[in-house]
């Protein structure tokens, strides 16, 4: 029995039975029918039994449907389609533990930079910040880090698209957190934002190398390369490096474009598993 005393009018029941109901009115009627035996009885008298069964099946399915978590709800409010939000929410690193680890790392780096106010550039912060999205992307998709990797590879949804979606999610969250941390270092001026282009270059370069070396090895290699490049160009007394100056940033921007082109070129290799993903050699024999 409906607690409000309201019942679905006969005309509306007929429209529902004739499949003329559309959301959100359809949901409203079905929600009432779920709670009101009287209206269900009237519907059973008025409608084709197949229509009634199909309606209950739809209702059961909706009641079973996964309830979106905070991240999915937020993405939905931003206009992200429901299925894309679900794919993003399944990203292994988009967990509170990962976000907390990024926040703590940034806090340490920003504190270290804050304590070294004598420097012209916040070296600890600029050295560490580009590595965070690199690590995040490395552990967001691939064999060994995503438990459903094998299923994703053989699914019709392009693996590269899934990878890009997850990269965008990781980059988005780490960039937002790092930008917030940058605000804690206002005394350094615009140079405090010099982590952005290195972060982009390192992430893209790592992606380009992933089909050949795997996500973790590629990220470790690129991270070591970044440390070596920084160490060879930095002045440890002032924290300055040509990488953080205008000229260096232009070079990094060009590097980002080249790395993006490389990622697009290796895109087909993401559609099969690593190591055995290459196309067969051309001398394959023909079937009889």
């Amino acid at each position, binding site marked *: 029995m409906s607690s409000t005393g309201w019942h679905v009018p006969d005309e509306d029941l007929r429209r529902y039975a004739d499949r003329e109901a559309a959301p959100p009115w359809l949901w409203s009627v079905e929600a009432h029918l779920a709670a009101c035996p009287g209206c269900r009885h009237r519907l059973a008298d008025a409608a084709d039994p197949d229509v009634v069964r199909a309606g209950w099946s739809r209702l059961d399915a909706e009641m*079973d449907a*996964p309830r979106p978590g905070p991240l999915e709800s937020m993405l939905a409010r931003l206009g992200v389609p429901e299925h894309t939000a679900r794919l993003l929410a399944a990203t292994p690193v988009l967990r509170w533990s990962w976000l907390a680890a990024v926040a703590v790392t940034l806090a340490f780096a920003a504190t270290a930079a804050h304590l070294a106010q004598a420097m012209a550039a916040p070296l600890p912060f600029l050295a560490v910040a580009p590595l965070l999205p690199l690590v995040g992307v490395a552990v967001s998709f691939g064999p060994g880090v*995503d438990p459903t990797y094998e299923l994703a590879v053989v699914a019709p949804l392009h693996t590269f698209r899934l990878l890009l979606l997850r990269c965008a999610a990781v980059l988005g969250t780490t960039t937002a957190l790092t930008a917030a941390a940058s605000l804690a270092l206002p005394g350094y001026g615009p140079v405090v934002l010099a982590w952005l282009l290195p972060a982009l270059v390192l992430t893209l370069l790592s992606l380009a190398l992933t089909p050949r070396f795997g996500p973790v090895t590629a990220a470790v290699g690129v991270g070591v390369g970044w440390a070596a490049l920084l160490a060879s160009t930095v002045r440890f007394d002032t924290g300055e490096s040509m990488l953080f100056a205008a000229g260096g940033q232009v070079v990094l921007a060009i590097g980002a474009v080249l790395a993006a082109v490389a990622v697009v070129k290796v895109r087909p290799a993401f559609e099969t598993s690593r190591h055995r*993903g290459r196309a067969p050699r051309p001398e394959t024999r023909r079937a009889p």
Partner: protein
Amino acid sequence: MTATAPTVRAFELTLRYPRRTALDGVSFTLHDGVTGLLGPNGAGKTTLLRIVATAIAADSGELTTLGHDPRTVAGRLAVRRRLGYLPQSPGFHPNFTAFEFVDYVAILKELVPARRRHEEVRRVLATVGLDGERGVKIKALSGGMRQRVALAAALLGDPDLVVLDEPTVGLDPEQRMRFRELVAESGEGRTVLLSTHQTEDVMTVCQRVIVLDHGRSRFQGEPTELAALAQGRVWTSTVRSPGALAAWRTGNGSYRNIGEPPADAALIEPTIEDGYLMLIDAAGTAKEAA
């Protein structure tokens, strides 16, 4: 012999890893029904299944799956749209419920509209008997139930080709029995390729069997034909035969001997396991001789 076009036609598939050859010129065809892929550990079963499932490509050879060439981007996509795959040791997001996991795989399979997708998720979970566990977290399910969740995910979209990699490993006898029933049912009207190293799986659900050993195909045919390989070579006796390829004491106290008979032995009907042991042993002997 079936007259319909094969679902899968493979010719001389070869794949080499840096230190070993996983597949060495394997040819076969698959038709509707359940085909068992039998072989010892390291025989190349998983490699072959991953090639058929389009997860990896062979180094050489020819493969046509569901009428498409999986080496091309379009062919691979066409195959994947009609494929169900249960990998060896399938991974799960442990915090997902059974419904959420299958729903996630459904999105990967491009079932986008939420209402239709959820109906399909309910259908496949009901097919594998997990109606009552839809809302249970994966980490709270038993091993057998997890395998059924993975099978449900493989059956999404009513695929024409289902590839199952050792789905009965780690299950208790009752779970194995239930799972075999599900596999047998899922093989009606479609092609199922089932990898296993348990001859009971082949006996109970497979219409055809392929035996792989050291990356090579050693046998292809019906299960009864595999058993027939040991015809006239299996004996029961009160003592173990010293010259037998394999001999063991059975539950009733007598010995089952494959190969040379001991004194006072009686010839008995061979099983698939006997035929398999004969085949693998003969292959091993030939390899040692070479």
